């Protein structure tokens, strides 16, 4: 591996993906040749949500990956830092989604180092959009990846979040977003619970409940696993940066929600 030096007329600029292409390691080609196109073979990651609050955004994802009707992993992570002030959460074909996250993280860091300045939040969202568009041929074969992107925008001084579609379409959402197989149930819960100017703690509680209700209705979404101690993966993004919530914190918020639900939902027999 030599020192990659370029003449000004063929310089890949601050893009790591362009550099990979120069080095003959472009992601597209490598994956295309080996893709089976059968979505049942590859593990799928499911429900992720993002909720905006007073100080930024909370992102959360359940921990289950499924292959058809099998549970392939019980504790995968779906929420990742994209850089210091943004995060990305994934749903869809897990292996490809994780590689996409890794490339996206590198793309942002590489840009920042080469240019000496981080991309704007819109620039970051646009990058992810272009990566998705590049992935469209594989998505058409069934290996779909749909991420959520959220971050703190220092220029506008607020948290912002973006939803995507399979073609790379990018949609900024005002308050919350959800994607994956449990997205309908999750987003209904958030829609009913959401208030403007929620505190970060309230947003965490809304996200925890949204994932719980999604898991309750959707077999591909994993609920809290009290026996193994597996809880949603969550992160908070504020002006101070991206921070993963501790396992203990999420466990405590889940316990409080379960306590509340048990009180209100005590099971009664139908009158005979």
């Amino acid at each position: 591996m030599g020192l990659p030096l370029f003449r000004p007329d063929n310089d890949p600029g601050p893009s790591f993906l362009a550099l990979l292409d120069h080095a003959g390691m472009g992601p597209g080609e490598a994956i295309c040749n080996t893709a089976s196109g059968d979505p049942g073979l590859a593990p799928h990651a499911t429900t992720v949500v993002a909720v905006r609050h007073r100080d930024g955004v909370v992102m959360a994802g359940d921990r289950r990956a499924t292959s058809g009707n099998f549970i392939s992993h019980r504790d995968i992570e779906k929420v990742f830092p994209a850089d210091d002030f943004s995060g990305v959460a994934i749903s869809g074909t897990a292996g490809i989604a994780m590689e996409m996250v890794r490339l996206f993280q590198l793309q942002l860091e590489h840009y920042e180092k080469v240019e000496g300045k981080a991309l704007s939040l819109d620039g970051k969202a646009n990058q992810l959009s272009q990566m998705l568009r590049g992935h469209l041929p594989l998505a058409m074969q069934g290996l779909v990846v749909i991420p959520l992107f959220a971050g703190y925008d220092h220029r506008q001084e607020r948290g912002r979040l973006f939803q995507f579609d399979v073609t790379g379409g990018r949609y900024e959402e005002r308050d919350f977003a959800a994607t994956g197989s449990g997205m309908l149930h999750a987003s209904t819960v958030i829609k009913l619970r959401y208030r403007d100017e929620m505190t970060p703690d309230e947003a965490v509680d809304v996200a925890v409940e949204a994932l719980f209700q999604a898991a309750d209705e959707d077999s591909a979404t994993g609920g809290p696993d009290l026996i193994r101690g597996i809880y949603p993966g969550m992160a908070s993004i504020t002006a101070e940066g991206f921070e993963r919530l501790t396992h203990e914190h999420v466990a405590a918020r889940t316990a409080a929600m379960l306590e509340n639900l048990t009180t209100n939902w005590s099971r009664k027999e139908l009158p005979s």
Partner: protein
Amino acid sequence: MSMPMYVSPEQLMKDKADFARKGIARGRAAIGCTYAEGVLFCAENPSNTLRKVSEIYDRIGFVGVGRYNEFDSLRKGGVRHADLKGYTYSRADVDARSLANLYAETLGGYFTHEPKPLEIEMLVGEMGEEPNGDQLFHLLYDGTVMDMTTFAVIGGEADAIRERLAGTWSQVADLTASVSAAVAALAGAERTLTADDLEVAVLARPNGRRAFRRVEGEELDSLLA
């Protein structure tokens, strides 16, 4: 047809070396040194946008002096090499030693084969997990590479600055003491350097994965006070 003039290889190399040295001596100096928390880079640089000190990778930093376009293109090459290597293997496999070797090869190649050698001098610094793992690589215009664990000075009047710093540098000094030692050495007895004349950055163990951090603005002012 006229015969090309014969120039002995000794003369050719000497001329190139003199040329490169002259170019480097015109620029202002920079210091790289180890300190209690990692590696400190301190350069005299009145520009706030054209950087001499930069981040290469998680634990690797870079300083260049001399011709800006030349060391900046090597800096970018270093970032690209490190990111490609970390992507292909693992982040832990990216180290300053192999980058310094690549730089040395490139500088040596220019010096021997190109009509004009690169008029630059560079430092590549790597922060270790433990204080005694910190490393500095000093690269000369002709591809000479030296490794050290104490301090290195590059650029104009390097010898005088090296002498001044030798009396004040200490491996166990904290950031405040290291910065003031480096700034005093750069300035000498007759001058005072302010935050506007300086570019300071550290690779520090408490910073987490990306250890590189610029020390600027109010923080630098208070360190110099």
